[in-house]
Structures are given as C-alpha cells and as structure tokens.
C-alpha cells in the first residue's frame, strides 16, 4: 500500500528505450472492502483527463466501491493517477447528486418530474423556433460525455433544430490542438502515439505540465528517465513544474511570448542546416514563407522578448535539430495563450522540417485536456461537421445530408460554426434565447466571470442545464436535468492518441437521473424531428445503435471507426482509429508515408490566415495544389494585448493542480483529493513577494481590470513577475453562484479574448496587481507535491493523504501489452 496523495506518480518501474513499459496495476477499494467482497468488475476507462486510462470499476451491492487499472490496456499498462483512483468513483457516488429534474417557479428551483421539465424545454424550443427560427438556439456541451451522446446531439442540433450555434467547453481545452492539426496537416487527427515515449531520444513539452495534467503519461516518462538511455527533456513553461525539474533545458518564457520562441527555434533549425531537405521538398508547402517570417528571430532577440537565456535557446534548438527521434507534446501553456494556433503550428513545422513524423519515437501529441474532447470534435458537437468533414465543401455537406437523409440545405454550413465565446456574446445581446448547457460549468470556467454570471442571469435567456450536481451554472438555470454519470451508463470515448475505449454501465444512476443520451433522445422524440421521408431523424434508441450510426458516418474519413464494435472492445485494450478494412487492428501512427489529408476534396478545412483567422477560400486552396503535402504555416510574433503596466505590473496566468479536475464538481467531493487542495490560493515568485512584503500564507488581493480575488499566497518558485492561480475554485461550496464576500475564482480576472483561428480563450495572459490585505494564520492551502510547492522546503507541512489515500500497486504481474496493431509487431 502506498499513499497516492503524497506519492502522486507511485513507484518507479524503470525501462529502457525500445522496451515495453512494464505493467503496474494500481487499485483502490473503499474502506473495509477487500478483493473478495467485490461482486463484479466492470470494464471502463477513466474520464478525469484526456489520457484515457483503461480501468475496471468495482461494484458491490449495486454501488461503485473502487477502481483498478487494466493491465492489458495499451494506454496505461495498469496504472491510475490520484484523480482516477479517488475521484472517478467517489466523485460520482455522492449524496449531493441531482436526483430529480428542477424547474424555476417564482424565481426558485423546485423539484418536478421529467414530463414537466422536458415539456418546458420543448415548449420554449417550439415557441422560439416559431418566433425567431433556429438562430435563437445555442448548445454548449462538454468534453466529458460519450461519443454516442455527442453524435446524437450533433444530429439533433444541426439537422433537427438546424442551428450553427453548437460548441463545447472543448473550445477552452482542445480547440487549438484541432486547429493546429487542421492547418498543418489538413485534418484533425493525432500524428503520434504514447508509444513514442518508449522509443524517443528526446521529449519536448511545450506549455504542458504533464506531471499534473496527465499523471499516468508522466509516469511513463519518469520510468524512461529512471532507466537506461533516458531521453533528453525540454520544458517550455513559466513555472517551475515537475516537468521543469526533470528537464535538461527549461525555458521559463514570459507568458504571452510563445510565438517568439517558436519562430526562433524554427530559425535555428533552418540556419544550422538541420532540415531534411528532401522531406521538405517532397512533403511540404510554403517553406520560403516560413523562412522569411522567422528570419529576424535570432536567439538574442528571442532571449530579449521571452526573457530567457540565448544559449538555452540555442541548446534547445540543437537538441531538436540533432537528436534522431523526437517526441513533442503541447498543451494549455500554448493553447490558452496568445497566438495559440500559430505557436502550435510551429511545433508541427519543426517536425515537418526534419521529417520527424510517422516513425517510432518521432511524434507529435497535440494534447487534449478532457477525456472525451476528441469525440466532441469528431462528431461535430463542437460545431464542426461530423467525421472531420469540411463545412466549406459542398460535397461533404451533401454526403452528410445523405447519411442523415435530409436536405443539404437543412445543415447549417453557410459560415464557420459559431464558437463558444460568440454563442455567449449572442446570448448577452439577446439574439440567442435558448441555451442548453451539458456537463460543463461556464459560470466558473469562462473568462471574465462577472460578465458571464450577468448574461446567464438574463430574463430573456431560457437556460437549460444538464449535470450531475447543482453547479454554479445550474443554480442560474430555468430547467435543471439530472444526468447519469460515468459508470451509470454505457458508451465509448477516444483519448488523445486516438484510442477508443468502451465504458460499460456498472450501477444504476441515483433517483430519476438519466443518461445524457436518453435525454437527447427524449428531446428529439418530443420535438418530432423527421428526415426527408418522414421517418424519425434519430432512429436509434440506445448507445450501441448510436455507435453503429456513427460508424457509418465515419466511413472513408480520417477518423474511420468502421472496424470497431462494442464486441471488440470488451475484454481487451482500447483500439486507436482509423480502424477499418485496411487497418483491421487500428493504427499506431499517422502519416508514415508523408501523405497528409490536404487534398482539397478530402481535407477538413481550406485553412486560415494565422494572424487574423481569415478563411482561405476553396479557390485559393485549390490553386495551391497541396496534393497530400503538409502546410508550413507561419505568423510573425505579436506582443500580447494586455501587457503589464504601471497600474497592473504583473503577468497573470491560471492553470491546474494535480488533485483537481475542472470546477471540482467531482474531485471536490472525493475526500483525499479535496483535503490535498481544499482552498484556492495564488502563487507569487519569491522576489515579488519580498517586494510586496508578503510571506507564505498571507492574504492578498489580486486585481485585474475585470475583477479581483482575495486568497492566501504561496511563495513559490515561479518566474519573477508572474502570478499563478488555480482555476478550479468556484463558489458551490462557499457562497453559491458568485463570489459574495469571498472572491476566489481565477476567472474573475481573466480577459475576454480568443485566438483568431482556434477561438480558444486566452486564459494565460493578463495583467494584474497584488496587494497584501491581511497576515495569514499559517501556510497557504496549496499542495507541496508538484508545481505549487513552496520556494523554501521545510517551511510548509508536506501534502500527505493518510489512510484514505492508501492504494495498492502490483508491479509487473503480467507482461506488458503489445502495441495495438499487427502493423507494429507482425
């Protein structure tokens, strides 16, 4: 037994390059429950981050009582992280769950039955469709439902209601991953695989605090680092994260300057002749433009703008340029920052310049944040067209119309889909009057919260919220629909590296709660949506039926699911798409042949200008004749729009801690996790704290032009001039909907702004000022185990979990699983 709050990454199982990662089976059972007491183990995968760890849910007397990693799964080889071990089941099996629908009566939410609640939803839908038409409707979904649910929602929204206003909170987490791959390769679809960690000589982490966001993936890296021939590690992050501590080079760039650094790295690779010229000539377009744009970015200039050492820039470029097998991973430090898509495309550019794609150890992981975000993107629940179809391509729209048996004109494709921030703007302006939010909590997670709370509150907005708990957002709703959780319903989902898992129903949902799929089906039925022959638009009635329909929808597309079935998932490992006749066992890596999905008839997008987001039209795209070549997309560096000044002299950024997930609706209800990080805090660099006269635990006010928070200060090891706050803390467990007397939510301070291409909000660049308001009565409630550890160790009691955090580890009980496909190991 081991305390997995104190030992976040558990015991090391070192391995060498090209060996398979050893198995370690992690298991947690409820207090007093032994192995023999478990009635059944039900196959699933964890939904508390994008890693997609295969697991089994322990069931006893009809309740979830624990979880263990699946040894056979290619993603995690048996392991689970703290969130998976404690949060997955404890965050669901909880007395606070919504068990009945609620409707607003005289300003208060009161319990009711499903008929009444759904009738209210349908009445409002019908009324608005009649009065204003489909543009009155918006859907804001999640990265945490199942594929079958998103696909159903996508059909309902696009061909039932016919609104272009569909998006998900994936806009906040993975929109840039998708956008950068579309721009560079012509379509969404992760080139690399987690297996590349086993095989690489160097790993670059760009704005990716993997140690805290995907703990199990980081265990894989740690185990390589503990073995023979460890890979070099390069970390780009303003904070001194665990990743930074293990890095050979750490570039603590000023937040907001990623594109300057990336232009500099690209330039170094070009001027030092580290390119693979044959590959560039045969497989890419626009090299000259890229070379011209990066030309001014000498290491010295990068050093000046980014605030890093010029020699470190050179060393970084040299590692990239001269190492045989390089894996790059990218996450929110790039995606939620200024020039998000441009900087992420530059990561793709680096790999394209050296031809480091589609080979063992040579991969790119444009990470996702959420467990099922990939499916939001694939199915078009984020506004895109399903199956990575191109909304600008009339043949694609016609094909989709055939799949759904509707008129092509029924599918809104006249302009780019409306992104989340614009949907909320339309709601603010009163042109969207019906907003249906599922499994996400915009009242805490969107930028500039005062504004969001105000607009969600508006009389003329009919707000439907579908969730497990009465979140801050749900408290503002007109109708609240209680949803079944993970483990209470069946469905599939796809992780970062395209691996699809099945999650089977283990227990019944509490009270009258229903699966999101059943809620959408009920709505479709009540709205009586029909296809062009008068048959029901959504003909399926269960998850497997939805999955079959989805498979057909993906036929011939990059995310081809036609070779997958529930049957195939049961008992084994997850399987990475595309999986079809050509790749019957799935596909480990994309683009081995250097042929990219950029063909004009096949691509998911004709692309955008990276500075403005202007659409490149079909004509211009065809004229380039991409013919399967990737696009080297370039953009000059531009300074961020809000830089520190006299009034707001510090740079502000926000992010995660290892123990929490999103707005803590689940993790805040799992004892070991909640106790490890019970309260909001803010991190100041030692030098800044000294100047402000603030010591560990003092209460400070952090203010931006948009709002303020008052929380305890952790004196940490961050970059001087940078202030960090975790974004998990809202008000459901303090004052209800909003801050009241105790503002603590990181998004009180963030700015309303987004990347021009991916439309991902800018959470990581803003200007703030900090003042001390009171002396603290002890250290800040921040964990000591990862990036938020104190600058002076020993001054703060280490974070431990105690008896409730003890979990089992079984090391190497079986041989590691082979990679997914016979392609890899015939």
């Amino acid at each position, binding site marked *: 037994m081991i305390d997995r709050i104190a030992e976040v990454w558990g015991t090391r199982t070192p391995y060498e390059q090209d060996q398979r990662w050893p198995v370690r089976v992690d298991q947690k059972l409820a207090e007093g429950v032994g192995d023999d007491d478990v009635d059944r183990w039900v196959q699933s995968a964890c939904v508390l981050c994008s890693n997609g760890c295969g697991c089994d849910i322990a069931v006893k007397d009809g309740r979830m009582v624990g979880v263990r990693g699946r040894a056979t799964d290619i993603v995690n080889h048996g392991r689970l992280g703290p969130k998976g071990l404690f949060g997955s089941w404890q965050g669901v099996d909880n007395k606070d769950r919504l068990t009945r629908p609620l409707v607003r009566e005289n300003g208060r939410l009161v319990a009711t039955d499903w008929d009444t609640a759904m009738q209210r939803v349908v009445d409002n839908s019908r009324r608005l469709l009649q009065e204003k038409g489909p543009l009155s409707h918006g859907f804001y979904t999640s990265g945490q439902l199942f594929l079958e649910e998103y696909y159903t929602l996508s059909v309902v929204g696009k061909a039932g209601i016919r609104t272009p206003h569909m998006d998900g909170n994936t806009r906040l987490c993975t929109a840039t991953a998708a956008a950068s791959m579309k721009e560079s390769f012509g379509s969404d679809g992760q080139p690399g695989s987690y297996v590349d960690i086993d095989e690489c000589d160097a790993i670059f982490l760009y704005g990716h605090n993997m140690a805290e966001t995907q703990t199990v993936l980081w265990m894989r890296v740690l185990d390589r680092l503990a073995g023979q021939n460890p890979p070099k590690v390069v970390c780009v992050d303003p904070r001194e994260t665990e990743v930074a501590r293990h890095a050979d080079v750490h570039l603590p760039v000023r937040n907001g300057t990623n594109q300057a650094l990336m232009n500099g790295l690209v330039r170094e690779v070009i001027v030092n002749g580290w390119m693979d010229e044959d590959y560039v000539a045969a497989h890419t377009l626009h090299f000259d433009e890229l070379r011209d744009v990066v030309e001014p970015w000498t290491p010295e200039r990068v050093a000046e703008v980014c605030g890093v050492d010029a020699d470190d820039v050179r060393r970084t470029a040299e590692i990239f340029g001269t190492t045989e097998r390089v894996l790059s991973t990218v996450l929110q430090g790039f995606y939620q920052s200024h020039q998000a898509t441009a900087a992420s495309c530059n990561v793709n550019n680096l790999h394209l310049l050296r031809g480091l794609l589609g080979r063992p150890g040579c991969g790119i992981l444009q990470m996702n944040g959420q467990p099922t975000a990939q499916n939001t993107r694939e199915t078009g629940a984020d506004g895109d067209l399903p199956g990575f179809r191109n909304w600008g391509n009339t043949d694609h729209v016609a094909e989709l119309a055939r799949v759904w048996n509707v008129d092509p004109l029924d599918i809104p494709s006249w302009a780019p889909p409306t992104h989340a921030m614009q949907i909320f*703007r339309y709601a603010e*302006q009163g042109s969207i009057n019906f907003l249906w939010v599922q499994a996400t909590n915009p009242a805490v997670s969107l930028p500039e919260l005062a504004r969001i709370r105000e607009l969600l509150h508006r009389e003329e907005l009919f707000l439907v919220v579908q969730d497990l708990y009465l979140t801050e957002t749900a408290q503002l709703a007109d109708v609240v629909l209680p949803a079944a959780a993970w483990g209470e319903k069946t469905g599939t989902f796809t992780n970062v590296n395209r691996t699809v898992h099945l999650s089977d129903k283990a227990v019944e949902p509490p009270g009258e709660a229903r699966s999101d799929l059943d809620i959408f089906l009920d709505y479709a039925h009540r709205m009586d949506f029909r296809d062009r022959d008068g048959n029901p638009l959504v003909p399926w009635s269960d998850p497997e039926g939805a999955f079959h329909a989805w498979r057909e929808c993906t036929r011939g597309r990059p995310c081809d699911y036609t070779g997958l079935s529930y049957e195939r998932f049961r008992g084994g490992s997850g399987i990475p798409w595309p999986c079809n006749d050509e790749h019957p066992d799935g596909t480990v890596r994309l683009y081995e042949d250097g042929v990219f999905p950029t063909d004009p008839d096949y691509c998911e997008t004709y692309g955008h200008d990276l500075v*403005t987001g202007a659409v490149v039209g079909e004509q211009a795209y065809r004229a380039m004749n991409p013919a399967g070549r990737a696009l080297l997309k370039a953009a000059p560096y531009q300074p961020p729009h809000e830089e520190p000044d006299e009034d707001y002299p510090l740079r502000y950024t926000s992010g995660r801690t290892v123990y929490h997930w999103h707005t803590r609706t689940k993790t805040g209800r799992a004892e070991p996790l909640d106790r490890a990080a019970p309260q909001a805090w803010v991190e100041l660099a030692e030098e800044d704290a000294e100047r402000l006269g603030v010591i560990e635990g003092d209460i400070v006010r952090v203010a931006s032009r948009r709002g303020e928070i008052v929380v305890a200060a952790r004196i940490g090891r961050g970059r001087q001039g940078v202030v960090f706050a975790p974004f998990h803390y809202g008000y459901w467990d303090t004052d209800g909907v909003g801050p009241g007397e105790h503002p603590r939510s990181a998004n009180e301070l963030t700015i309303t702004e987004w990347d*021009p291409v991916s439309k991902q909000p800018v959470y990581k660049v803003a200007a703030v000022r900090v003042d001390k308001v009171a002396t603290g009565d002890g250290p800040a409630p921040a964990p000591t185990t990862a990036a938020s550890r104190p600058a002076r160790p020993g001054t703060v009691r280490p974070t431990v979990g105690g008896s409730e955090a003890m979990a089992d580890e079984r090391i190497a009980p079986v041989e590691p699983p082979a990679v997914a496909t016979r392609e890899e190991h015939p």
Partner: protein
Amino acid sequence: MKLPVYLGLLREAERVLAESFRQVADGHAAEPDVHFLSHTLAQQCLAHYEALDPIVQRYGEARQEDEPERLHAEGLGRIRSGPVGLLRDLQDVYMLASVVEITWKLVGQAAEALRDRELLELVARCHKETSTHLDWLKTRMEQTAPQALIAAQ
C-alpha cells in the same frame, strides 16, 4: 507621369483605412476579436503609410490640381451600434480596404513597367496584407450576417 497621383491617393487611403479600423476597434470594443484585430490591422495600415514615404519622396508629391476630388477615399462617418451596425461598419471598411487593395495592384503594375524593384517589393508585401484584411472582413461579416439580419433585436 501620373504615378505620383496614385501614390498620393494610396498613402492617403491607407491613412483613412487605419483611422477607420481604429474607429471600429474602439466603437465595437465589446466584440473582442473585432477590437483587437482592428487595432492590429490599423497598425499595419499605418506601417504601409509610412513605408510609402520614401517612394513618394522619390517620385515627388502630386500637384493639388492633379488629384481629382473623387479619387479621395472616404473614411467611416459615425460608428454605428448593435449587431446590424457592426455589420454595416465592417462593410464600409471593406469598401475602403477594396480601394486600397486595387490601388496597390495598379501601383504594382506601374512599378513593373518602371522596373522599380524597391516599389515592387513594397507592393508585394502590402498588397498581400491588404488582401488578408479583405479576407478577414469577409470572414467576420459572413459569420455575423445571419444572426444580425435574422435573429437580432
């Protein structure tokens, strides 16, 4: 030679376009993408304006009477409000940017005929950026038009 007339027109049109982008940026600050991008594009226009200086010097300023009144580019009048107002303002800027775009194109042709390498390089850069301004304006208008024309109050 009438090229100086066109260079003068172009420089003036870039100034007016910069000013109009700035007006849109400030007048529609509640639309963050319009706000920030219009400021960025205003700066690009000003850079074009300044880059034209040495060329204008070289060819000499046009005489007043050589510049017919109707060749002057009109800027935005008052900023409008609301969704349809935004659409209309962007449309006006689009017209103005079109004038700038085609003028660059024509000046470019003259530069080719004159084999003026310096001017050609400038035209290549500025014409491309101006085309992108048009593309962005078009993208943004297309995105917003249905909502403004059908659903907005």
